[in-house]
C-alpha cells in the first residue's frame, strides 16, 4: 500500500460512470437501479476498507459521518462535502455545492408542456423556471444511483446500515439524504 499512487484522468471516471448507466439501461436482465446499486455497493465497501486502513478507528456515528464527508468524499470527488445537517435522530443531509460527477449534466432542459406560460429556461441555472427543476432532478436520478450506492456501501461496511437518496433539483449542487436504520 505504500506504492506511489498512480493517477488517472478524471475524464475517464466520468465517461465510465456515464457508460455504466447507458449500458445497464439497455440490459434486460435487471432494472438499471438494481444493477448500478449492486456495483456501487461493492465499490463502496472496498473503498471504505481501503480508506480506513491507516487511520484510527471510528467509534461513533458522528465520527463515521465526518469521515464520509471529509476523507471519503475527497477520495471520490476531490473535494469535501460543503454542508452537513442532522436531526440527531439518524437522518443526515450532505450538501455538495458542486457535485463533480454531475458537472457535465446539462441543467438546461426544455420545460415540459405544463400550464405555465412563462418559460424562461434558456437562461443560466439561476433563472430556471419552476417546472424544469423536478425534471432535471428526474433526469439526474439515473446517474445518481451509483454515487448513492457507493455511499451506502461504505456506511454499511463501517457498521451503519442505511438508505441513501439524492436530490439534484439545484444542479450543480446535490443533496444526499442518509437515513440510518436504528438498532
Amino acid at each position, binding site marked *: *500500500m505504500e506504492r506511489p499512487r498512480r493517477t488517472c484522468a478524471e475524464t475517464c471516471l466520468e465517461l465510465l460512470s456515464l457508460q455504466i448507466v447507458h449500458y445497464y439501461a439497455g440490459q434486460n436482465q435487471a432494472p438499471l437501479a438494481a444493477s448500478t446499486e449492486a456495483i456501487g455497493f*461493492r465499490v463502496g*465497501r*472496498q473503498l*471504505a*476498507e*481501503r480508506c*480506513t*486502513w491507516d*487511520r*484510527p*478507528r*471510528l*467509534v461513533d456515528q458522528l465520527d463515521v459521518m465526518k469521515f464520509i464527508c471529509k476523507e471519503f468524499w475527497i477520495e471520490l470527488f476531490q473535494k469535501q462535502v460543503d454542508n452537513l445537517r442532522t436531526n440527531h435522530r439518524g437522518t443526515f443531509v450532505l450538501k455538495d455545492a458542486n457535485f463533480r460527477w454531475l458537472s457535465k449534466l446539462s441543467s438546461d432542459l426544455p420545460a415540459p408542456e405544463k400550464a405555465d406560460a412563462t418559460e424562461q429556461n434558456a437562461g443560466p441555472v439561476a433563472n430556471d423556471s419552476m417546472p424544469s427543476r423536478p425534471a432535471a432532478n428526474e433526469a439526474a436520478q439515473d446517474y445518481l444511483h451509483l454515487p448513492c450506492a457507493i455511499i451506502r456501501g461504505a456506511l454499511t*461496511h*463501517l*457498521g451503519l446500515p442505511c438508505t441513501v437518496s439524492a436530490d439534484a433539483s439545484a444542479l450543480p449542487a446535490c443533496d444526499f439524504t442518509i437515513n440510518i436504520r436504528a438498532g
Partner: protein
Amino acid sequence: MAAGSVLTFVIVGRDDHPIFEADLTSKASEVVNRDDRAQYLHQFVLHAALDAVDEQIWTTTNMHLAQVDNFNQLRVSAYVTAAQMKFLLLHDGKSEDAIKAFFKDVYEVYLKVMMNPFFTPNTQITSPSVHQRIRAIAKTQLKA
C-alpha cells in the same frame, strides 16, 4: 523436544464467526504430536476473548488493542479494523511490538483479499496463497 510455542491466528467477522484460522507454529514435528485437546482449548480461549475485545473497542480509537485477555500462560492480543473485523492472536509471550507489526502486515494482506471482486466479504478465506503469505509474515515478524 523443544516445548511447543503457541501461536494461533484467527480473523473474526462482524457476526463473530471466524473467516480465517491458522496455526502458525513452525511445522517440524510439533504438528504431528499436537494434542487435539490443545486445539480445542485454543479455539475456546480465542472465542472467550471476543467478549474482552468487544469491551475494549469502545475505549480507544487505536486499531491495535494490546493484550485483551489471558488464560494461564496463554495470552490473546487483538487488532480491530474500522469495519469491525477482529484479528486475534493467541500466543504465550511475544513482544507487543512484534505483534503489532505482524497485525499490520496481515491487514495489508487482508486488504488485498477485500479488493478482490470475487471475494464476498465476511465469508471464509480459503485461498492457499493467503495462508502462505500469512505464515511467511508470521515467520519474519514473530520469530525474529
